[in-house]
């Protein structure tokens, strides 16, 4: 048993950005274990994606190009992959930690008899083998973990943790079919009915130059005017982290993060947001980030440019006053 497989995710043959990051992670693991890294593409009509993956410095691209894999359904995707894994026996199987890949990767691990290590953000080779880092407690802490035993392992890597593999011009890796996948039973257990927008009135926050985002720390919908006043003083759009949306305090089209919008404004003011990874992936492109939070250990302070530690109900009104006082008349 040996080798590292990166499982690429795509929609209609167009790669999810996490796929290229999974390849980088697979290459890092392969480097540390003295193995080779391969890219794996499951789907139908995915030749272009396979050729693109062949230019990322992998040893080979393994492809299951089958009509039954045209649309993502976990059962057929898992069955095809398990059959291929059992034939080829790679040690590591690396997925992007996405809504689609995590939906089926544990089923793959179970079928392959592998362990699972999800949401990895870093990897280091120690004297005692590989040490993996992953966020815990909503990003407030990190855990250093070790794999036990030498059986196969399924790993997922968090968005942005590894750089996207470059697709270089020049020599391309060989592209090979995975015959075992074609022989697997690929009956879909889900009858797909459609895709819809999660929010009805979609506000486009991606165009906003300034955003004031509010988190759980606001405490309740009756307190929202505090941050709305700041947004008004800055000429900013109001947005929120997931808990605020889940509680129904603001509509879902105001959500920033992995299940909401991804923004890159010039100014992002995070008020009462602790900074769970699911939120950070949606706003890390901001040019300047301000964090206001009562907890000095909140992870948002690690990504912010400026921080004020304290009670938002004192700081935000003071900030509104400072903005208005200093405004040229």
């Amino acid at each position, binding site marked *: 048993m040996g080798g590292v497989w990166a499982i690429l995710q795509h929609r209609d043959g167009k790669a999810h950005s996490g796929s290229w990051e999974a390849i980088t992670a697979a290459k890092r693991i392969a480097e540390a274990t003295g193995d080779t890294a391969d890219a794996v593409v499951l789907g139908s009509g995915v030749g272009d994606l396979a050729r693109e993956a062949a230019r990322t410095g992998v040893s080979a691209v393994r492809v299951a190009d089958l009509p039954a894999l045209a649309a993502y359904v976990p059962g057929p995707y898992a069955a095809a992959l398990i059959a291929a894994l059992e034939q080829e026996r790679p040690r590591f199987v690396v997925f992007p930690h996405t809504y689609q890949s995590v939906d*089926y990767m544990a089923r793959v691990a179970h079928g392959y008899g592998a362990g699972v290590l999800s949401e990895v953000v870093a990897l280091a080779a120690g004297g005692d083998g590989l040490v993996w880092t992953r966020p815990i407690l909503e990003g407030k802490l*990190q855990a250093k973990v070790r794999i036990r035993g030498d059986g196969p392992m399924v790993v997922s890597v968090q968005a942005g943790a590894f750089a996207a593999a470059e697709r270089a011009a020049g020599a391309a890796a060989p592209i090979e079919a995975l015959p075992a996948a074609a022989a697997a039973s690929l009956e879909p257990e889900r009858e797909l009915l459609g895709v819809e927008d999660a929010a009805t009135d979609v506000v486009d926050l991606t165009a906003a130059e300034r955003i004031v985002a509010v988190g759980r720390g606001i405490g309740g919908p009756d307190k929202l005017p505090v941050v709305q006043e700041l947004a008004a003083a800055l000429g900013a759009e109001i947005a929120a982290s997931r808990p605020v*949306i889940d509680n129904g305090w603001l509509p879902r089209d105001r959500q920033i993060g992995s299940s909401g919008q991804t923004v890159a404004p010039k100014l992002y003011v995070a008020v009462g947001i602790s900074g769970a990874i699911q939120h950070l992936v949606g706003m890390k492109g901001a040019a300047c980030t301000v964090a206001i939070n009562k907890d000095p250990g909140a992870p948002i302070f*690690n990504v*912010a440019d400026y*921080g004020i530690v304290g009670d938002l109900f004192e700081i935000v009104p003071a900030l509104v006053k400072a903005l208005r006082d200093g405004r040229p008349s």
Partner: protein
Amino acid sequence: MKIAVCIKQVPDTEARLRLNKQGTWIEEEDLPFVLNESDECALEEALQIRERQGGGEVVAFSLGPERVREALRKALALGADRAVHLQDAAFTGGDPIATARALAAAVAREPFDLVLTGSQSDDLGWGVTASLLAAHLGLPHAWLVMGIELEDGGAAARVVREMEAGKNEIFRLRLPAVLEVQAGINHPRYASLKGIMGAKRKEIASVGRADLGLAEDVAGAAGSRVEILAVEFPRAGGGAKILEGDAASAAAQLVELLRSEARVL
């Protein structure tokens, strides 16, 4: 309809966290514990399904030490009919592989039409335990569920699942199945005084490793493929410039920096 709901008790993420002496986990003494947010939504969804169906049974399962009985008692107060506590020192230190194996053995002792749980725990956050549970039980499964409607008299379900970038996908699944709900699928109810009083008379069955027919080497840490070596606060390197002073002073400094240094005002 008989529904199993798997719940986890987790540290209150609003609490101030400290590391234990060895740096291998957080100090649990004096730490408040709560019912995991998305698991509470899974329980609420089960209760709503039971109400819409006009009957049925909701059974809460949880694995963990003695304190977990509080979480199960809360589930009973909210409306679960009975609870099963997987309690055994042998379960300690389990990774998703070991924990899913134990949960599967417990859930499989009775026939269920539906197994619900939250999509992710707010402490370890592996996000894969319930899909391993589904694999053990040989049932279809979905992660990040935002809507469940029963069809064909409970033989199937129309499921709405969250995707990236503000989209949902909709599909139909045969039941029984394991569905992992997202926080936000509903607004969990509060326990009533009557519910709290009534919970005291409801059953919490305790089951251990041997009751579930599990060998020692497949439970807890011994049956795990992943182990935590250490936990730490993320390094604040390159982090925010923290503005000191009272609110007015910090606010004035910030406005000045946004103007002159960041040049975003």
